[in-house]
């Protein structure tokens, strides 16, 4: 029995290491749970809506939950991201239409220094609110690992559309239509 004990312990330790590796890899990888739920028409609740994030323009903090009752186009972006530069004018144009229907674009910067983000906001004349995800936890809860990514959230706080990548006018039209009819 004693002769077998050592190989058993070594095997168990090896299995633990492999398990740890698998957990680490799956934990780091971006989750696509939201995409699957939206694809199945389940319209999942927007995660971490109560998490407060600092506003880009000042020292205040706010959360997605404070936009409750509004249609929100949640847009993750960074100043260094070229597709974000492409879609910024589209988002700003959509904002003027969304505002009139009690809806808004809500930008969230991710992996970006605030002076660079502020310069970006000035450069593209963005008027919609922008928050800073300083830890990356908020973006991670949306499975965001590449930028830009956008989510349309209805008035009840459910995600109804997701765009992993640069958005187009059709995506924004969907959000505007949702705001108009709800």
């Amino acid at each position: 029995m004693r002769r077998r004990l050592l190989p058993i312990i070594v095997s168990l330790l090896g299995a633990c290491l492999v398990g740890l590796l698998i957990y680490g890899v799956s934990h780091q990888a971006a989750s696509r749970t939201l995409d699957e739920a939206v694809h199945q028409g389940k319209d999942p609740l927007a995660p971490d809506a109560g998490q407060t994030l600092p506003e880009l323009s000042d020292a205040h903090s706010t959360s997605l939950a404070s936009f409750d009752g509004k249609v929100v186009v949640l847009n993750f972006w960074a100043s260094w991201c070229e597709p974000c530069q492409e879609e910024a004018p589209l988002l700003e144009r959509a904002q003027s239409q969304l505002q009139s229907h009690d809806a808004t674009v809500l930008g969230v910067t991710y992996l970006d220094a605030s002076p660079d983000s502020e310069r970006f906001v000035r450069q593209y004349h963005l008027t919609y609110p922008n928050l800073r995800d300083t830890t990356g936890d908020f973006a991670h809860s949306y499975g965001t690992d590449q930028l830009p990514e956008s989510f349309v959230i209805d008035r009840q706080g459910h995600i109804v559309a997701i765009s992993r990548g640069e958005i187009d006018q059709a995506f924004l039209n969907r959000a505007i239509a949702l705001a108009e009819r709800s």
Partner: protein
Amino acid sequence: MRTAAGALIAALLCLSASPALGMGAADAPPHTSLPAIERQVMCVTCKIPLEVAESPQANREREFIQGLIDEGQDEAQIKRSLVAQYGPTVLALPSAQGFDLTVYLVPLAVFLALLATLTVLLPRWRRRAREQAGSVLDAPRLDPADSARLEADLARFD
């Protein structure tokens, strides 16, 4: 006499303090350098250490760090500022919290497990080697006739 000694001490104190007084906060040498920080942080978009990264974002990070160095911030303060801007993934070494703790604990655990395995196995191997050596010594000796024949054969090959 006491007054003269006092004046001398005061003059010496003034002399020793003068370089520090002459050097304002702005002239003070920086607490750290850009290469020292570059070694410890990542380029957040390229996901490689900043010291080897060549990209517009890497250069922006360098500018940001240089700005903090010029402000007189030390290494710890700069790293805190970087984390506040880019999040904890900007640090090359993960934090010792949560799952990241495994980065430090697993190598230690593997080392201890290897040490324990060797502690158990080495005496066993040595015992086995001793036993094998003993069995060679205990082998039956050649009888004189065989020994003489072996010697003769070996002499023929010389």
